[in-house]
């Protein structure tokens, strides 16, 4: 068999039937649709569901990104502490820096000590205070970055007390306050995200309930005929459910893809509209590099599944309720 014959056989194979066979009976579309598609305001509904899905994906993506950035920041912060030297009333600050650094290097659980130069401090403050030569003239605190062994951490309260006892104007910042604040911000963002998702879910349910009722009114004759030929409410609900599942899948996919496009373009957008150095630094702090990552996009798949499921279940419940009311 040559390639063209193989291709012809491939094309002639009833792939559609094969796919249909994989579906439960009520979801097979190998027969004509009992509910006419044109009888339901699918287009308007598709747009609304797509927007809901877009908003849900944006929310999920943003919360996920904030969470990732915060986790990365906390991770950095817990493996490092900072020792701060007050330059006021210290005639030879460089000598004091060396002594403190030597003292720290001797402590257990400290893997690396890095005194920051005036230039390093100036670079850190440059986005906020401008040119470094101005900063160098200011009595800015000097910093020593201390990396700690996370598997065998030092006794930080003891080191802090020793520093205070042995050196004037030297303090240790273990960043706990910052960690707590970051966790607080992340938690607030997650709660806000959940609240928005709840609103999106409620709006989706309300829209589907309304659309189901209007679809049932416009298909009243079809429903009557189905009753006459012995269809039970499960069969009738299944017909609506199949339509709404298809609509939910298509619309939420459109919304999710649109949101994915936004996140794909986010690094570029951050670069284009980043503004000044401060704004860019703040944006990076909040969103990291602006890349969502595979796990983030997997949440979009979850959003699509949940919205499609919501459409299906809501329409089913709606149809059964209305049928009972008719009765």
């Amino acid at each position: 068999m040559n390639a063209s014959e193989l291709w012809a056989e491939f094309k002639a194979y009833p792939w559609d039937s094969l796919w249909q066979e994989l579906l439960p009976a009520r979801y097979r579309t190998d027969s004509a649709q009992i509910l006419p598609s044109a009888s339901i305001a699918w287009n308007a509904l598709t747009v609304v569901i797509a927007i809901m899905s877009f908003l849900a994906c944006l929310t999920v993506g943003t919360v996920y990104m904030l969470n990732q950035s915060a986790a990365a920041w906390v991770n950095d912060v817990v493996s490092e502490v900072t020792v701060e030297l007050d330059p006021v009333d210290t005639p030879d600050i460089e000598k004091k820096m060396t002594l403190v650094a030597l003292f720290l290097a001797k402590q257990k659980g400290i893997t690396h000590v890095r005194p920051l130069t005036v230039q390093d401090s100036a670079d850190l403050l440059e986005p906020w205070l401008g040119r470094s030569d101005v900063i160098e003239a200011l009595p800015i605190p000097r910093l020593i970055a201390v990396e700690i062994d996370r598997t065998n951490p030092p006794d930080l309260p003891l080191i802090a007390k020793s520093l205070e006892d042995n050196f004037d104007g030297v303090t240790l910042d273990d960043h706990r306050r910052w960690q707590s604040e970051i966790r607080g911000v992340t938690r607030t963002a997650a709660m806000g995200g959940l609240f928005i998702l709840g609103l999106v879910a409620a709006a989706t349910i309300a829209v589907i309930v309304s659309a189901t009722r209007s679809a049932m009114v416009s298909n009243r004759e079809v429903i009557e005929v189905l009753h006459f030929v012995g269809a039970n409410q499960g069969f009738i609900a299944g017909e609506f459910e199949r339509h709404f599942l298809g609509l939910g899948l298509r619309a939420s996919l459109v919304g999710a893809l649109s949101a994915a496009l936004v996140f794909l373009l986010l690094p570029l957008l951050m670069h284009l509209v980043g503004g000044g150095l401060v704004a860019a630094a703040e944006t990076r702090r909040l969103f990291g590099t602006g890349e969502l990552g595979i796990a983030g996009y997997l949440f979009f798949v979850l959003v699509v599944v949940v919205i499609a499921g919501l459409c299906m279940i809501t329409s089913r419940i709606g149809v059964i309720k209305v049928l009972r009311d008719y009765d």
Partner: protein
Amino acid sequence: MIRFENVGLRYGSGPEVLRDICFQVHPGSFHFLTGPSGAGKTSLLRLIFMALRPSRGLIYIGGQNTAELDLAGRAELRRRIGIVFQDFRLLDHLTTWENVALPLRVLGMRETDYREDVTELLRWVGLGDRINAYPEVLSGGEKQRAAIARAVIGKPELILADEPTGNVDPVMGDRLLRLFIELNRVGTSIVIATHDYALMEQLPAPRLMLHSGQLEVH
């Protein structure tokens, strides 16, 4: 198969359109339901088919009190009944074949299992060349035959037909009557509502005569 006990029917707060209806249709029997226009034939058929609830009295279908049936129970019972409406009730967005196959689809059967049966029945009622036509292009007689085919395709225990020969020529009318007679021979109970006396003359079946909302059996 059907038992009515002192059944009355009124629409809203209007007068009773059916009064003190009592009759029985035994399994495998053939009945004509007749009477002048407006006598209540269609209402009576709708009561049998559970599309209406009686204002009073009891209706038993297949031994079951219809007042005691829930939605699922009524659906189950309707599957044992085939009905032909005067206004056909075909779905305009489905082809003739799909309309006729609808009761089998509702039963959950696979299309491959009934494809030939539906096609054969459509050929038998003279719609072999109209299989893929939509109802809007069918004549009144063709719609009538499609509606009859839909009612009988599921081999129901009871067939209710409202003026089934009203829109067909005498030859096709005879042919459809023969179809009902054949179905009756294999045990299906038949109730045909008609005021076509020529049709009733062809078969010595009991006549349920409706007049001014009351029923007499002849």
